[in-house]
């Protein structure tokens, strides 16, 4: 067989015994919670779609205030299948972030971040924040009215950060206001800075997952220590085929969304136009956006928006440091507090996103 001959040819030159051994040995644990293992692979697949369609969009996109909108319009209307590529990119971005958030919550509820996987957690949170960065910067790139004003509001929130806010606002916008300079910056972030960081974080994340194998829930681990045998299925090919099957399903959903529900381009951004009604950020920022809107303008001596930004900053720090704060899980003891906090966070996010969507 040709396949066998190619492998033999490579083996004679590179010595593939390590790889062969790894593949033969790698297994995926089988237990009641195993369904959550698919979320990581799904996130990775959607990220791949983003990279592929993103590179394709680069062929025709032009990052300037004068041409950005027109070039996107050109892509969706003049370039053959341009509508498909652009719609896939927009839809996949949203599904990707949804998958990543779900992946994170599953890790929290299964305590998969506990010792020895703190580094995997840290790189994962880095990836999640990078994806928010991708989403925020990419939203502006078509230079349409909605994105323009949403970016104005979004960067304005950065301006509320204590002490460094003013600097951050100017730094993000490339000036005092959202202009073509902002577009250039966001473009550079979206296609150069973030992808570079993404590659590093993703490499680390995947390397750690392979090195340490899949985490199992605390109760399963306990049974193992008591002498139970860990049921596993081989990663190749049994598990890989399952992954591929789900990817195909995702692809079908994406294709249907892209073809049947095209992402609207709207009107070109006009900095002098009045703010149109219904300005709201992408759904994954809605909960935060709506919370900031609810906080009164002054709480005691501190400005309301500033207070909100400080609270969200603290929440982010707690999230990052979760494996180090949750000492009980690291000792393989149950910690219901994390579960309750996770459920509360999930309810808060869902409710505020929905209410924010309905009221904006």
């Amino acid at each position: 067989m040709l396949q066998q001959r190619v492998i033999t040819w490579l083996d004679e030159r590179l010595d593939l015994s390590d790889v062969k051994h790894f593949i033969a040995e790698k297994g995926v644990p089988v237990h009641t919670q195993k369904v959550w293992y698919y979320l990581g692979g799904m996130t990775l697949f959607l990220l791949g779609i983003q990279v592929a369609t993103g590179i394709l969009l680069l062929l025709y996109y032009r990052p300037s205030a004068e041409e950005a909108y027109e070039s996107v319009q050109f892509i969706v209307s003049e370039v053959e299948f341009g509508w498909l590529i652009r719609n896939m990119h927009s839809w996949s971005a949203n599904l990707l972030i949804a998958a990543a958030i779900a992946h994170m919550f599953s890790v929290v509820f299964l305590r998969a971040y506990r010792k020895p996987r703190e580094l995997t957690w840290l790189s994962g949170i880095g990836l999640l924040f990078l994806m928010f960065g991708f989403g925020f910067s990419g939203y502006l790139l078509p230079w349409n009215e909605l994105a323009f004003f949403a970016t104005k509001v979004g960067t304005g929130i950065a301006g509320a950060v204590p002490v460094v806010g003013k600097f951050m606002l100017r730094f993000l916008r490339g000036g005092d206001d959202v202009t073509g300079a902002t577009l250039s910056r966001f473009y550079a972030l979206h296609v150069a800075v973030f992808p570079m960081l993404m590659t590093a974080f993703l490499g680390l994340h995947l390397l750690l997952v392979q090195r340490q194998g899949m985490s199992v829930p605390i109760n399963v681990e306990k049974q193992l220590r008591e002498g139970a045998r860990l049921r596993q299925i081989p990663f190749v090919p049994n598990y890989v085929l399952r992954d591929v099957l789900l990817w195909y399903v995702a692809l079908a959903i994406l294709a249907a969304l892209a073809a049947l529900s095209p992402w609207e381009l709207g009107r070109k951004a006009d900095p002098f136009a009045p703010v149109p009604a219904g300005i709201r950020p992408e759904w994954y920022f809605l909960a935060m956006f709506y919370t900031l809107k609810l906080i009164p303008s002054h709480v005691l001596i501190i400005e309301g928006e500033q207070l909100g930004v400080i609270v969200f900053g603290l929440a982010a720090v707690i999230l990052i440091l979760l494996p180090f704060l949750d000492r009980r899980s690291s000792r393989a003891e149950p910690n219901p507090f994390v579960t309750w906090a996770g459920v509360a966070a999930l309810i808060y996010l869902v409710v505020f996103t929905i209410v924010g969507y309905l009221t904006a």
Partner: protein
Amino acid sequence: MPSPRTVDMASTDGRLERRKFLDMLLATGFVSTILAFVYPVWRYLIPPATGEPTIASVVAAKASELKPNSGVIFKFGGKPGILVRTPEGELRAFSAICTHLDCTVQYKGDTSQLWCACHNGIYDLGGNNVAGPPPRPLEKFVVNLRGEPGNEDVVVSRA
């Protein structure tokens, strides 16, 4: 694809047949889906006939085609513009959309004015509304010449 571990020891001829059929089905599926992905991408890579997106500016006419004291309508995005050569020979361009009720204005040679036939709106050659119902002047565009002397294109762009 089959590895030693997946060989079914109890396979009969019927099972082998079914497995072969399944593998063939899978291969057909893979190949056709891959074609379905590659085909759009391949078509996407082919440069479209219209060249490039240039909505911010447009070639309105050849400079030599436009005689003094005349005007010509050109397409600017989805909207009409009017390129004018004044009796003195100067080139000017405006949006051809009358500011009253969005009719298309035209050049009126006998008075050297821009005229809207719908309600007799009149603009001077600076685009200013001078008579009739138009409430505002016409939007003004920037005119540049590009190309070899004697055969220049008139390039009109938004101010």
